């Protein structure tokens, strides 16, 4: 097919075809509709006055001068929230500490009540006729702050005497959680022949979807109903939280629309102060209220990711086989528990510590720690990158300490029999880790590496190679399982397949696409199943007035869970269509076959196409409506029976210039097992993007606060985003073991690159530099210092 061929979409699209994307035309022509592109009649503009202090008591807020400024419509503070009995923002996943106590959730109002806890915390909102006027007026608000001592550092925030953020949480500790069998792990270490230990920092990241967050709240006084356009990955969850917890409006009086959303990477899962305020304030001022983040605001108050300090030990027997794994992690929560923050360093992290390896015993402890920094929550991979980085760094270090080849050391410890129950909850249904390792090694030309390293050395360059054999748990998630682990929601997905009388189809999904290409992949599935051209299928998502309910898109769940719901609805459509076709063909239902878009009486040439059955369903002339209801529309809720387990092997080859500290990624190979792939073009694109983010974490990106809690990396001038000449081209390949627990055999692909890449890069860096101590981000300055120290040590030894 060629994309210029107008008939390209007028074909049935099989599963596995690299179908070009249906949504691209509007994005390519400037017709995408992002939240900030919408304007509402009479709209006002919101600007948030943010705390300049990391920790301060608010003695008073005087808005009188600001209120008199030109164009000001209203100025609201936490006192007004209280007046309207608007509730706090919440964290929706309850974690219990090892002593059984529930996590200590500090109060998190959308506008500060008496105290601010991070630079960027929301103090007041100015609503004005123009954004300029709102900003001008905000500068005239007089806030009397009493500055408080700051707990900015994760390493020290739990110490006795550290400044306390929340009275409810002594030692700034939200919870002290454990997972695994402590006694069994101790026993494993007692009989270990060798123990490998590692201390790691998993650096803090700013998600940086290219579209800044935005919101428009509008209140219709006639219907007493709100509409909120906002940049969310899960509009129904946003509505549920706004309704059930924050108390803006009952669900049936609140419509949330997530139109085109320009990337999310987790940061748009959460319910933030700004959209909450826009919705609430629209009733108070009686006009629509619009807010769009400036990038500097995104850096300040979009939830950050990662930020762990970890000590880990791996127990090995005489043959180099793993006996046990022991982990203690401190996870930075920032100043408040964001929507899903508590689940990230716990059930999305500790459960992945077995990696691809047969580990008889694991014990993991995680302390969740408040600091005077922006909240930390899910960012692409969310817990699983942190787990993979730890497992794959310590596996590499163990291989080096044993003097074993890192690939063979991994292979020796691979899980090879499935299903496999790990010591940390998860039960892997299927996988073939040796297959992805072998393919990656072949694609990366491991055999030729020593020669390349020698050639680089002749040029004064240091070459290194690093593996990352990752696993992730995706397809979130079996509802009863996550419920038992503390989730406040179920993690099923919904779908509704509406067949129109003329035979075209609308699919309403609770998933939300913000770059993943659902409008194509989901339509491809329907096209293949019903045998109708893909241009006869429209995917509807992102509007709570259209889609009844859904859990949204994150955790690589839209394929494995969202598409499974569509399959289930399609099953029902086909079942009903068969009954109708039997009447149309005057045959017995049992004799009806459905193939290539036609219902056929088995063994005959009597057939009706799908579109004719659709029309027949709506005319309802040819079947008894006492037996079969007219129409052809079916819905389904699909709840997964297990997580899915994408896995694979990424290999990074670097070349370091010790004179400058500059690292060149000369080759990056990714081999992934995502189960069945619907659209390989889209899957490859997901892998590319994830790898770039992983390389960013490893070499470029790092959120930095100073000891006063001031954000040092507050713009693209200070925070290094990967640019086109920072990353190489990627060599990607696939292996396939079919997921056994969902109807399509899909595992999910959205996060793999970000999960696998950091360990691959740093393992290559440590290999090149000959030291295990290479922190992320390994910037040229950092690498140069390492090289200089090594050179100095060599000189001293001479």
């Amino acid at each position, binding site marked *: 097919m060629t994309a210029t061929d107008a008939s390209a979409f007028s074909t049935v699209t099989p599963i596995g075809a690299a179908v070009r994307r249906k949504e691209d035309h509007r994005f390519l022509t400037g*017709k995408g509709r992002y939240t900030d592109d919408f304007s509402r009649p009479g709209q006002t503009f919101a600007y948030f006055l943010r705390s300049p202090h990391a920790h301060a008591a608010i003695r008073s807020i005087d808005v009188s001068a600001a209120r008199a400024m030109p164009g000001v419509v209203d100025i609201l503070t936490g006192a007004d929230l209280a007046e309207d009995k608007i509730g706090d923002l919440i964290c929706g996943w309850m974690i219990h500490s090892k002593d059984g106590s529930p996590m200590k959730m500090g109060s998190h109002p959308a506008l500060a009540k008496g105290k601010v806890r991070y630079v960027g915390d929301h103090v007041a909102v100015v609503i004005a006729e123009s954004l300029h006027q709102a900003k001008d007026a905000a500068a005239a608000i007089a806030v009397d702050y009493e500055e408080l001592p700051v707990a900015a550092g994760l390493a020290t925030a739990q110490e006795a005497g550290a400044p306390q953020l929340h009275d409810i949480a002594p030692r700034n500790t939200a919870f002290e959680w454990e997972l695994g069998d402590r006694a069994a792990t101790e026993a494993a270490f007692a009989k270990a022949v060798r123990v490998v230990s590692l201390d790691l920092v998993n650096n803090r990241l700013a998600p940086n979807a290219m579209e800044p967050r935005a919101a428009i709240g509008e209140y219709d006084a006639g219907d007493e109903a709100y509409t909120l356009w906002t940049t969310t990955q899960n509009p129904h969850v946003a509505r549920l939280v706004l309704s059930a917890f924050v108390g803006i409006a009952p669900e049936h009086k609140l419509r949330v629309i997530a139109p085109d959303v320009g990337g999310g990477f987790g940061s748009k899962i959460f319910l933030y102060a700004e959209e909450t305020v826009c919705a609430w304030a629209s009733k108070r001022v009686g006009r629509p209220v619009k807010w769009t983040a400036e990038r500097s605001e995104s850096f300040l108050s979009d939830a950050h990711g990662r930020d762990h300090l970890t000590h880990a030990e791996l127990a090995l027997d005489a043959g180099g086989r793993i006996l046990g794994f022991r982990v203690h992690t401190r996870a930075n929560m920032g100043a408040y528990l964001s929507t899903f923050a508590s689940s990230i360093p716990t059930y999305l992290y500790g459960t992945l510590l077995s990696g691809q390896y047969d580990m008889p015993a694991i014990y993991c402890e995680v302390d969740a720690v408040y600091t005077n920094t922006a909240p930390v929550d899910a960012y692409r991979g969310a817990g699983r990158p942190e787990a993979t980085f730890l497992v794959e760094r310590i596996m590499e270090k163990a291989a080096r300490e044993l003097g074993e080849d890192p690939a063979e050391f991994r292979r020796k410890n691979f899980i090879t029999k499935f299903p496999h129950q790990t010591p940390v909850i998860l039960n892997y249904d299927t996988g073939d880790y040796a297959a992805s390792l072998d393919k990656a090694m072949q694609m990366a030309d491991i055999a030729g590496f020593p020669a390349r390293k020698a050639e680089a050395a002749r040029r004064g360059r240091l070459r290194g190679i690093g593996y990352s054999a990752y696993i992730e748990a995706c397809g979130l998630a079996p509802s009863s399982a996550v419920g038992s682990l503390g989730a406040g929601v179920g993690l099923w997905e919904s779908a509704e397949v509406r067949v129109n009388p003329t035979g075209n189809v609308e699919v309403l999904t609770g998933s939300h696409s913000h770059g993943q290409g659902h409008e194509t992949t989901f339509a491809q599935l329907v096209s293949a199943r019903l045998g109708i051209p893909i241009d006869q299928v429209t995917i509807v998502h992102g509007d709570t007035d259209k889609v009844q309910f859904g859990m949204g898109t994150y955790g690589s769940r839209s394929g494995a869970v969202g598409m499974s719901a569509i399959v289930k609805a399609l099953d029902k459509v086909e079942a009903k269509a068969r009954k109708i076709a039997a009447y149309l063909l005057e045959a017995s239902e049992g004799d009806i076959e459905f193939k290539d878009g036609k219902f056929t009486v088995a063994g005959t040439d009597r057939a009706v196409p799908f579109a004719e059955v659709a029309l027949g369903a709506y005319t309802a002339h040819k079947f008894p409506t006492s037996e079969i209801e007219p129409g052809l529309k079916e819905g389904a809720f699909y709840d997964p029976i297990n997580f899915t387990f994408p896995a694979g092997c990424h290999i990074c080859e670097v070349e370091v210039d010790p004179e400058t500290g500059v690292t060149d990624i000369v080759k990056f190979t990714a081999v992934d097992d995502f189960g069945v792939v619907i659209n390989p073009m889209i899957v490859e694109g997901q892998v590319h993007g994830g790898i770039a983010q992983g390389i960013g974490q490893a070499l470029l990106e790092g959120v930095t606060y100073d000891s006063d809690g001031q954000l040092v990396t507050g713009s693209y001038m200070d925070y290094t985003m990967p640019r086109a000449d920072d990353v190489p081209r990627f060599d990607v390949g696939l292996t396939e073991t079919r997921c056994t627990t969902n109807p399509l055999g899909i595992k999910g692909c959205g996060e793999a690159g970000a999960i696998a890449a950091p360990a691959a890069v740093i393992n290559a860096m440590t290999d090149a530099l000959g030291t295990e101590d290479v922190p992320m981000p390994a910037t040229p300055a950092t690498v140069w210092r390492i090289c200089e120290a090594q050179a100095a040590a060599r000189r001293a030894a001479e």
Partner: protein
Amino acid sequence: MTNLATPASPPKSETVHVSLTVNGKPVTVEVDPRTLLVQLLRDHLLLTGTHVGCDTSQCGACVVLMDGDAVKSCTVLAAQADGASVTTIEGLAAGGTLHPMQEAFRENHGLQCGFCTPGMIMTAVDLVAHHGPGLTEQQIREGLDGNLCRCTGYHNIVKSIAAGAQAMAGGSGSGAKVAAE
């Protein structure tokens, strides 16, 4: 959509008169002197295809062509565009047919969320104008230094631009053939 929607001109401050050509059409507007070109395009002309992704002229989502050269429209005052001819992403497809660079981005999956895409494509067209159809991968990667993408890892953007450059040289509509694997 109505103009109530757009940030109203400040009631009292003086305005400036700007006349320019946008996507081939003459336009005259009265704007607040501090109005940026991107605000003129998005808020006054409702050409929302040009995006704003940062506040430090780093991301390139706002790139348009001004008198044939790529500019970051967040860093140009509307008043500076007086008399200029501006082309935005909405003006690139002639008569409903995608520009070869647009076609190449679609064929090579050079976009995901689409937010950076207009700026990427306008920059790409400018790169081809400066380097010709045979521009190298290194020239493309260096030429994209002012454009950020968080979705694609740039792999398919680079591929798209190489294919689009060839297609632009070969006349319209051949992008898909060049780019086809």
